[in-house]
Every structure is written in C-alpha cells, then in structure tokens.
C-alpha cells in the first residue's frame, strides 16, 4: 500500500534539501486555517503526489513542518496545502504573501488506497483539519465517479465558521452525488445543520458493511470513536484506513521523531490500514 513518490527530492539528490518555491495564493478558510497555493519550481518538473501524502514545508530561517497536500493530484502546475496556524512554522507561513519564497521537499509517506474502493461504497470520516488530506481522495473519486458506489462524507468542525471548503462541500453534495453530512460542536441561531460530534452522524446513514471502504482522518480520539462506530456497523478492520499524526522532522525515516510503536509514520504512514495500528491506538503514552 505504501507508495512513495519519487520526484521532488533535491536536484542535488539530497533528500533533506528543500526546493525553493513561490507562493501563488493564500486563501483563508477560517480565522486560523489557510490554504497555501504554490508554484512548483522548474527543478520539480514531473512532480506527482498521491492522495494522503505530505510535503515538508520550510520557512527560511524558521524551520520545517509536515503538511498534507490538499489539492487535486491530477492537477499539475500548482500544489495546495491547507494549514492550521498553531506553531512557530505555521504562524510564519501565515504571514507570507503572494510572491514570497518558501522551501519544499516531498512528497512523502503512504497514500490512501483508492483502487481497492472500485465498485464499492466509500465512507470518508474527517474532523477539523483532517478533511485536508482527504480532499485529494474526493477529487480522485470524482474523476471516475461511476467507478464507485455511494460516496459518503461525514465531516465535523468546531463551529460553522471553522468549517473548511464550505463551497466545495456544497458542490460535492449538489453536483456530484456525494452524501455530505456536516456537523459542528456548537452553533448559533443561523446554523441550520447538525450540531454534535462527527460520530453522531452515523445515525443518519446506513452502510453496507461488506461493500464499504472507510477512510478516516482527524484528531486521534475522534478516530478512535469513529472506529467504534464502524465496528458497530460491521465493517471489517481491513476495510478501514486512517491517517496518523506525529511530530515529523526528517520525513525519511531516520530521525525517529515520528516513531509510533514499531513504525515510523513518515515512512510507513501517515496512512495505515487499521489492522496495522489497531493495537497501538489503545496503548497509553504512545
């Protein structure tokens, strides 16, 4: 399942050296999350990524952060990264403008196994920024919509203003026959949608347990409760995939910062089949 893309390593062959890339656009999705669109450099010609993979994004003089790629894998010429401003590097990225240069190396990590979902239903469960690594999955499914059965997207956010990709969510539901259910932790009187945790949305859907593949990404505790719901509905563990997050540094399996039990998330992950990590999820302080 692990499929490393090859391309955007340093032209000098050093996997730790970032390419300089130019920021084409910054779109603020909400108060603290933005989508950074970059133009790959000439050195990155032929750059390709798979849904679920990430890049190391470097702010010169500040440092690097591992950021999932959130754009359409079939679209060449630009790359999107949706970034939650929470630390030094992401705060520095948030202060960048169109035309500024940053560094980038990647893509790294495993990808969502989309081919196994052909002819089946797909249930995508995400929370918060977790929708970003799954957006390339949705684009890929839509490129061959007829090859898949039902596509269900369950998405939870903190509040209506915190939701990502609101225009696209509506478009996916209205124009692409995707069952999109969105919920927020708290809303005001203008919000007519669901309020509650993302797992509560399972009450409103019926899954064909034998013919559904689930992709899950969000805060780890959200994923644990989501796995319980999928289990209650009879999905076998080998039909479930999830994306894990740990602190990444080298992204090439050397430094050990992202060790998760016997695996390094930067190399074997971030996307894992559930049986590979099920026992680790219940282990304390891992």
């Amino acid at each position, binding site marked *: 399942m692990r499929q490393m893309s090859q391309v955007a390593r340093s032209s000098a062959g050093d996997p730790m050296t970032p390419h300089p890339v130019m920021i084409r656009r910054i779109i603020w999705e909400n108060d603290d999350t933005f989508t950074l669109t970059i133009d790959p450099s000439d050195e990155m010609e032929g750059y390709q990524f798979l849904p679920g993979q990430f890049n190391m994004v470097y702010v010169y003089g500040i440092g690097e952060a591992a950021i999932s790629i959130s754009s359409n894998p079939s679209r060449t010429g630009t790359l999107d990264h949706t970034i939650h401003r929470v630390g030094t590097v992401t705060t520095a990225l948030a202060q960048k403008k169109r035309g500024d240069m940053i560094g980038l190396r990647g893509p790294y990590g495993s990808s969502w196994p989309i081919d196994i979902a052909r002819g089946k239903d797909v249930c995508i469960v995400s929370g918060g920024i977790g929708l*970003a690594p799954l957006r390339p999955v949705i684009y890929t499914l839509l490129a061959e919509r007829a090859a898949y059965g039902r596509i269900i997207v369950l998405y*939870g956010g903190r509040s209506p203003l915190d939701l990502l990709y609101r225009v696209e969510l509506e478009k996916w539901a209205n124009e692409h026959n995707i069952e999109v259910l969105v919920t927020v932790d708290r809303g005001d009187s203008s919000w*007519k949608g669901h309020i509650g945790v993302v797992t509560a949305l399972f009450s409103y859907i019926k899954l064909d347990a034998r013919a559904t593949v689930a992709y899950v990404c969000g*805060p780890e505790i959200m994923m644990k409760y989501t796995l319980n719901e999928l289990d209650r509905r009879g999905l076998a563990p080998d039909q479930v995939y999830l994306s894990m997050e740990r602190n990444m540094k080298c992204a090439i399996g050397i430094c050990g910062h992202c060790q998760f039990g016997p695996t390094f998330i930067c190399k074997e992950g971030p996307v894992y089949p559930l049986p590979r990590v099920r026992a680790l999820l219940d282990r304390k302080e891992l």
Partner: protein
Amino acid sequence: MEKENLVDILQQHPFLLGLSDEHMQTLVGCASNVRFNEGAYVIREGELANSFYLIRTGRVALEMDMPGRAGLRIQTTGAGEILGWSWLISPYRWHFNGIAVADTRAIALDGECLRRKCEEDPVFGYDLLKRLAQVMERRLEATRLQLLDLYGTTASGVGA
C-alpha cells in the same frame, strides 16, 4: 390519526425496534402525531416537560438560554432519534429550548401517560428505560467528546 397507522409509524422508529406487540399497544395509547414548522419551539426551558418526542423527519436544535447574549445551540436531534427525557425525571421541567431548524414531524408521547403505564407495567417500564439509557449513554459520550474541543489544537495536515 388511526391507531393502526400510529402503530405502523412507531414500529418503524429506530428507538422502538424490537418492542413487543403487547408493549406497542401499551405505548400507542399515549401517542399522537405532531408537526412543527421551521423556527417553532418544540420545548421551552423551564416549562413542564410532559412529552417525549420520537422524531420522524426534520431536525430540532437544543439551545441554552444565555443571559445577555443569543442562545447557544449545543446539539441537534433528527430523524430516527428522540427528544427529551425530562418527562421521566422529577420535577419534570425542560432544561433546554428545542427549536425546529427544519420542518419537523414527530410522534409525541404523553409523559404523564407514559409514567403511569411504566408504574402499572414494570416490565414495559424497564424496557423503555433500557432504551432511554442507551441513548443517554451515547449522548453523554458525545458530550464528553465535545468538551474536549478536539479540533482546536492539532497542527497542520499530516493525520490531522
């Protein structure tokens, strides 16, 4: 609405799946069909809680009154779910407002009638209580998750 039709509707509601025919007959005597237009109050904080709603279609938001500011909506309940258990617990007052955020159809079960039947038939009462306890357990779990404010702290993309 005919009693037979109400039984059909009740039998299809997920909350009552598997309820015996005998208990269904007990229950239907307390049931009536109700409808709320979008924006209507289904329940009001502080008022007598004398109904138990099985939502058929639509959605109801639970809202807490906040002095000096707009109400805060903390949960919604929709098709196939239930609304309200204060009818069971003394002093039988609603703790929240419930506002239909979409046109909503429901079966209303009279709380006083239900309590009386639960007292008369403890087996029926225990069955009903077990079903309610399951819902309460799930909602307690969901509330705990909401309290964690899950989405505010994760970094930036890889995994979340």
